[in-house]
């Protein structure tokens, strides 16, 4: 579960994990929006970042990871309401985990993302 001060500020978050896929949900409200009344790009990237970490940590036995690289492509927009991020692991090495993620709003794909996560403490 995303925790720590910044995730506490931006959440609450809801998660589930099944068959190696990590799902993270958040309700978008007014405080998450940009000037155009859409979810702010920074908030979408916060959701993506948390989802990548959640998927990676499914495979580390709870050892924390830190994001080394993140790419987000913005295919669409969303306003207030539920957002669902699904993330998965593409490859795990001794120190790095390569992950993918998608964010949907009402079933519509709005963000595709990849990340490289570093396993904290790994050499």
């Amino acid at each position, binding site marked *: 579960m995303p925790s720590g*001060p*910044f995730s506490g500020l931006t959440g609450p978050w809801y998660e589930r994990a099944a068959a190696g896929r990590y799902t993270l949900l958040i309700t978008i409200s007014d405080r*998450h929006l940009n000037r155009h009344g859409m979810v702010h*790009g920074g908030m979408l990237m916060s959701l993506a970042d948390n989802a990548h970490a959640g998927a990676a940590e499914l495979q580390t036995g709870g050892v924390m990871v830190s994001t080394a690289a993140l*790419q987000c492509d913005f295919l669409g927009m969303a306003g207030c309401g539920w957002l669902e991020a699904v993330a998965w692991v593409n490859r795990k090495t001794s120190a790095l985990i390569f992950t993918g993620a998608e964010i949907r709003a009402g079933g519509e794909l709005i963000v595709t993302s990849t990340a490289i996560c570093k396993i904290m403490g790994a050499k």
Partner: protein
Amino acid sequence: MREAASALGLGYRLLADQGDPYLHFIGPFYERHEPDGGFSYACEVRPAHANMAGNAHGGMLMSFVDMVMAQPAYMAQGNDQVTAVSTVASFIAPVRIGDLVECRPDVLRKTGDVLFVAGVFRVADICVLSAQSLWKLAPGMASR
């Protein structure tokens, strides 16, 4: 060795409210007009910005990145009718609570409807993050 620096002490002023509720919610952020006409931006990383490890949350940094990269896009376009299409970032070094993160973003290229923006983010003289963003004239927004 990183020394605590304050944005106001380095000549920054509070970023003018541009009407984004999210940035007001997670900020404040700062801007500084450079003598040669450019702009720099800064974020003082506060305890509320931390992740579980006690560093700045990656999403918090990406939120600052998004704000910073938007500014030259707005200026190049002459209005705020632009939307981010893609952003990529490398997290080069951890950012700690109390750090002042600064960036002076650049427009690498502007075509008819696409802008390429790049930024190197530093804490003192340490490069902590680099980012590139692709911006596009927002469809359906021009008439608002």
